[in-house]
Structure formats: structure tokens, C-alpha cells
């Protein structure tokens, strides 16, 4: 995995000149997969991709839907850590990572978070708008939300979803109390988690006429999906306005993440709120009828490609997200790579994302 090491060692996480290295690392990964995973080889053969020579562009790599990974357990070598996607309907995918993948992921996380100014030595207080890790919950969302609380030293951590005997329940009151306390202290506060809960918290604060002026450097970090907001028509502008009004946090201190267990690449929004594609991955948007790649600017299924992992064949996966890839050359942030906009998801079948699961719990809360 020489090429992977080289790729994930790139100094600039948004270096646009590395496409050849990227393709090389993908082919290297493909060669490992077809020799270490019979199921992957069957699929590759079925799709007519018999060897790395059949791959001339990243889009030629056999695409595996996350839907299939939830129904079929793929393995392609020894692993150290296993992550489980959030599967509320009884289907979850198990993604295994070997040591080399973890090292690559670590290098990537450090470079990306440093680039975006999230990695900091200044101690802060965390409010996690998600699950408190509990042995009954192995989902990656719980783990990643928890892990992000290490991006700067933590003075304290508070979780909005508490595990009770009846499952996970939101506990807004204790958050409000905590905010009262934190407002008077010096250390910045960092929110992390689902946009839906964060938005909900804003609304509660607004309704109760509460507003806080949190210490300078406080941030809101969002991951886990904006999707339901498109349906509820609560757009991002409203979100930013409420953040300012209720917590005193400016728009530039709202950082969004995008990622999936099946594609553990850290997409971090730039100050213009764009998810630029980093050097570690490629995104192909595919036609919703034919799955053929389509040009930038059109909506389709989101195919995510990265040679990060060997122990599970997640080289090229298709999510059930619908998105648009935009040309990034004119973005004011200076990064030239294209950026991804998530528009929503495919119509519901029986699969729910973790964000949808959160929305379900919320319905039980009366405001």
C-alpha cells in the first residue's frame, strides 16, 4: 500500500494535482480486494472489471451500494477496528479497518482539521448533540461524535441524548442549565452532532426568550445530515441566524462535516459552506436512471471513492444520498476542487439514516 501511504501523506489536503497518484492508489487497492475478497471478485467480474487494467478512471471501479453492505457482510483481510453504521431497521453494515487504514485516517483527520482551524490546543467545553456512548450502542455516529470531542482538550462533555431504560431521550433542560454556567466562563463551547437537535435547541431557547453570549471561539460542529431540513423548509440561513441570536455564535464558527461509515473521509465545509473534495477521495455523481456518471451541476446518486481501507471493500461505494457536484474553481475560499452538495436521499424504503432516527425520537417530545 505504498501509494496509499503517499496519498494520505499529502501535505495539502486539497491539492488538485494528485489525480494520477489517486488513481494509482485506487488500482493498488483494487488489486488487493480482488485477491483477498471472493465476493468482491465475483462482483467485479460480473461487472466486467477483471483486472486493474480495466480501470482507466476512478468511475470505472466497481461500485458497491451501501444498501448491499447492509445486507451482505464483506471481508477482505485482517482488521483491528470494526465500525457499525446506524441501522434502525435491523440492517446495519459492518466496516472493518486494518491498522494501515487507521493510520491513514488519522493523518487525514489531523491535516483536514488543522486546515480548517478546528484542531486546537485551547481547552473547551463540549455539548454533544447526540448519543452518550453506551455499551448498547455501537453505531459510528456515537463514536465519531465522541471522538470529535478530542479535537481540542475537553474540560467537560455533556450529551443531549441520554440513555434511559426506555431508550435514548433528549434532555434539553440540563443543556440550558449548562449554557447558563458556561456563558460566564472563559473557555469556548463546542457543539457537536445532529443538525436536527441543534436546531431544536435553538427553537426551545427562542421560545423561552433565552439568549446567551458564549465565549469567543465557540463553535457549532454539525454532522449527521441536513436532509430533513430540505423537507421541513427550515433552511440553513434560518439556522445561522438562530445560532447568532440564541448562542451568539457567528456563521463562520459553524462547521459542517459530511461522511459515512462506508466512506470514512472527513468532508469539512469551507467558510462558504462548501464540502470540497479532498485529495483522499473522488466523488462521481450518477444518473438516477442509468447510473452513468453525469456532469457537474446535475443531481444524481452520490458515488464516493477512496483507497483508504483494505479490510473491507469500500473502495467505491454508492450511498443513498442524492447530491450535486459543483465546479469549485470559483469558490471564494481558495480551494479549487469540486464540492458536494447533498440535496436529500432516495425515497424511503425500509432504511433510515441515523439523522432520520433522531427525528423520530424528537416526535415524542412536546414543546
Amino acid at each position: 500500500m505504498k501509494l496509499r501511504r503517499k496519498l494520505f501523506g499529502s501535505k495539502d489536503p486539497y491539492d488538485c494535482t494528485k489525480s494520477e497518484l489517486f488513481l494509482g492508489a485506487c488500482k493498488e487497492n483494487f488489486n488487493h480486494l480482488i485477491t483477498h475478497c471472493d465476493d468482491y471478485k465475483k462482483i467485479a467480474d460480473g461487472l466486467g472489471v477483471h483486472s486493474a487494467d480495466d480501470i482507466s478512471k476512478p468511475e470505472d471501479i466497481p461500485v458497491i451500494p451501501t444498501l448491499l453492505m447492509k445486507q451482505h457482510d464483506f471481508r477482505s483481510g485482517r482488521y483491528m477496528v470494526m465500525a457499525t453504521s446506524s441501522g434502525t431497521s435491523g440492517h446495519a453494515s459492518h466496516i472493518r479497518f486494518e491498522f494501515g487504514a487507521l493510520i491513514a485516517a488519522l493523518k487525514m483527520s489531523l491535516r483536514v482539521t488543522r486546515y480548517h482551524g478546528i484542531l486546537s490546543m485551547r481547552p473547551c467545553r463540549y455539548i454533544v448533540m447526540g448519543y452518550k456512548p453506551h455499551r448498547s450502542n455501537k453505531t459510528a455516529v456515537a463514536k465519531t461524535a465522541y471522538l470529535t470531542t478530542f479535537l481540542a482538550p475537553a474540560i467537560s462533555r455533556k450529551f443531549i441524548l441520554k440513555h434511559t431504560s426506555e431508550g435514548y431521550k433528549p434532555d434539553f433542560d440540563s443543556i440550558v442549565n449548562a449554557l447558563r454556567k458556561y456563558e460566564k466562563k472563559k473557555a469556548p463551547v463546542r457543539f457537536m452532532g445532529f443538525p436536527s437537535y441543534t436546531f431544536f435547541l435553538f427553537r426551545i431557547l427562542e421560545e423561552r426568550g433565552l439568549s446567551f453570549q458564549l465565549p469567543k471561539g465557540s463553535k457549532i460542529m454539525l454532522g449527521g445530515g441536513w436532509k430533513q431540513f430540505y423537507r421541513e423548509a427550515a433552511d440553513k440561513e434560518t439556522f445561522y441566524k438562530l445560532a447568532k441570536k440564541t448562542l451568539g455564535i457567528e456563521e463562520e464558527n459553524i462547521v459542517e462535516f459530511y461522511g459515512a461509515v462506508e466512506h470514512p473521509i472527513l468532508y469539512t465545509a469551507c467558510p462558504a459552506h462548501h464540502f470540497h473534495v479532498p485529495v483522499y477521495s473522488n466523488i462521481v455523481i450518477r444518473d438516477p436512471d442509468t447510473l452513468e456518471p453525469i456532469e457537474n451541476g446535475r443531481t444524481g446518486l452520490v458515488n464516493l471513492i477512496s483507497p483508504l481501507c483494505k479490510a473491507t471493500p469500500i473502495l467505491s461505494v454508492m450511498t443513498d444520498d442524492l447530491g450535486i457536484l459543483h465546479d469549485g474553481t470559483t469558490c471564494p475560499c481558495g480551494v479549487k476542487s469540486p464540492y458536494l452538495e447533498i440535496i436529500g436521499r432516495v425515497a424511503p424504503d425500509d432504511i433510515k439514516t441515523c439523522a432520520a432516527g433522531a427525528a423520530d425520537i424528537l416526535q415524542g417530545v412536546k414543546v
Partner: protein
Amino acid sequence: MILFDGKTYESSEQDRLLTELEKKIPEILAKDQLSPEVVIDAVDKLRIDTMAGKFDHLLTEFPKDIADSYKEQAATLLSREHLHKKLETELGVTEEYVTDPLKGFAQIRVKKVPLGVLFHISAGNMDFLPAYSLAEGLLTGNINILKLPSADNGLSLKLIMQLIEYRPELKDYIYVFDTASTDIQGMRKMAELSNAVSVWGSDMAIEAVRGLAPTGVKIIEWGQKLGFCYISKLSEVEDAEGELDGLAKHIATTKQLLCSSCQVIYIDTEDENELRTFAESFLPRLEKAANENATEEIGIRARDTLSSYTRRLKAYLGNEEVNENVLRGRGVSLILSKDSELELSPMMCNVLIKPLPRANISKVLYQSRYHLQTAGLICPKEDRAGLTETFTRGGLIRVTKGADMSAYFPGECHDGEYALSRYMRIVNVEE
């Protein structure tokens, strides 16, 4: 959400409500029988309000053309006239009568009465099916416990609540639960309260219900069926092009999701080349139909594309020989097969094409006897009667044009029986 006695409750109250229902049922059974006229009146009011656009906001999740066609169908099917006709067709004589005197025997009074309590386990593949199944139970005067399918989007409950609003006396006869299919205890309790279980679903669903229902409860099964279209001597068929376009449209509009939908197209031949020639000419038609009937909604299109692609990959994973004989088009595929087995296609406009020489029809039908329902037939006029006879003798319930495989024919039965007569029993009283 639970609907009980005309009021809604949280799902968590299921246990308490079922215990209460056990006490209520004998009280309701002791009352006068529910008149079908009350039900017809409520349904007709629903029709009038539907026509007036009162429920348009509930239909916004359907593509416009589909919502329009639902409204058009509702105009006829929910009308007083149609419902009266349905009662007459399905139940025959409902007036009680006394048998003719026969020497040496006493006379009896004969009448049809409701079974008592019906437990409906509805399927989620057809919009409005839960409400429809419930309405049939009401028309026959039964108390109805309805388990909504997990895929239900709340529409069924809204329609049912509307019926109660029109005729509040219906509330005694309607109990709707959103029990999960995995809640075996809950479903067993519901079955134990009932005289009959009416179950729509796959073989697996029916097997599960047979397992949980107490001995003695009548099980009314509306099982999964497999439709096919039989094509013979295409070159001699009058307006063959129109027939094939009709079949393509049927496949594209039902997406092969219904029991009556075409899963397999059988060609009356043994020649593999003939199969391929047919498939090559049918592919562009199917592609065109799929394209014309594609929903505008990108989310639905993407989901369907993604699930057919996933199924395709799963086939590669299986140990079976990978079928090389697949013709792919935009959003559609035709899978050529050498055997004649009637089986479920991958659906979503992915159709199986198989050879079936006439001489083998009966054998294939016998092998699939549990799953037969609808056969579309495209053949020369002079062969139609003979082939139809072979099909119906072999176990088919409906023989239609290729285009009309999933059409609703007023007066039709379902899976060979009239639903309403299955929901009633006949009683004899000595004079």
C-alpha cells in the same frame, strides 16, 4: 398511532387497549347488526369530498398523474351504485328466506350474518389497501381490527378517521393498530380476539400468521401471486404492436409490484433464437414505456435504480451461474432464461423472458399452482378461446389482455373468491 373507539392513542397503549377491547367486543356483538347502508353512506360522502378536492393535500406525495387516476377511480368505485352492486355480486341473496318444504323434514330459515370480529393484516404494496380491506369488513357488518403495514404513511388512518366523522356509529366497529410486524405477542392477542384473520402478504407473512393464530380462527389468505404474459404466434396477431406496447405500459406502470403484474413473458417456442429476437424487439418498447411513465420524482427513480442494481450485484454473489443473457436498456432489462419456471422477477421493469411451448403449459401451471392468478394473453383471435381454457383449467383466475393484467374489472372476484362472502357465514334456524 392507534385508533380506538374513534379516538387516537399512542402506540404504547396497545396492551391496555387490547384488554379493554376484549371486554367491549361482547357488548358490541349484542347490539343490532351494523347496516351496510351506514357504511355505504360514509364511503359515498368520502367520495364526494374527495371529488371536491378536500383530500388533495393528502395526495401530494403521489405523482400528479397517479393522484388524478386515483381520484378518477374513486369517483366510480366509492359510489353508492357501485357498492350496492358489489354487495349484490359478492353476497348474492342477503335477504333471509325459508327453505321449501320437503316431506319428512322440517323447514329452516336461512340468513347471512357477519363472522363477528375480523383481524386484517394488510399489505403495503398497494396504496389504500388497508382502508379498502377494512371497508369490506364493515360492509359485511364485522368488528374490524386492522394492523397497518409498516410502510403505511398515515394516509389509511386519515381516511378511516374521516369515515367515522361522517358516521360516528362506525366507531364501535373500527380498531386500527400500528403494531410492528415483529410484535408477535401483540398480533397473537389480536388474532385471539378474532373470529377470522384476513391476511395479505407473502408466503412468509402467511406462514407466520398461521403460526401465531389460535386453532379455530378462520384464516382468510390473500397470498402472493405471480402474473405472467403468454405470447403465441405474434406475427399473426392483429395489432401486435399495440398489444406489445400495452404490455410494456402495464409493466412500467405497476413496476411489477402487484400480484397481477407480469413477472415472466412466456413465448410459445422452444427456439432460443426466437426468444432473443423477441427480446430485442421488445426492449425499446419497454424502455420507451418506462421512460414515459417514469415518475418525475428523482428520489423514487434513484431508489428504484439503486435497488435493481443491488439485486443485480446480489445475483453475482450467488453461487448460481451468472446469466449472461441479459439485455439492458435505460432503467429496464430483459433476462432471457432457458427454463420455463414461473418465478418472481427482479421487478422494477426487469422482466424474465422464457420459452413455453403450448404442450408444456399445463405442466408449468401445475408446478406453480399455489401462485397462479393473472395471465395476460397475446395470441391470434382463433387461438384465444383454446388457450384461455387451458389457463383456467390449469388454475388461473384471470385471463386478460397484456395491457390489462392489473386492471380492475367491476364485479371481479379476488383470487377466485368474493371477499365479502368470505367475511360472512350462513346460519340456519329451524322454523
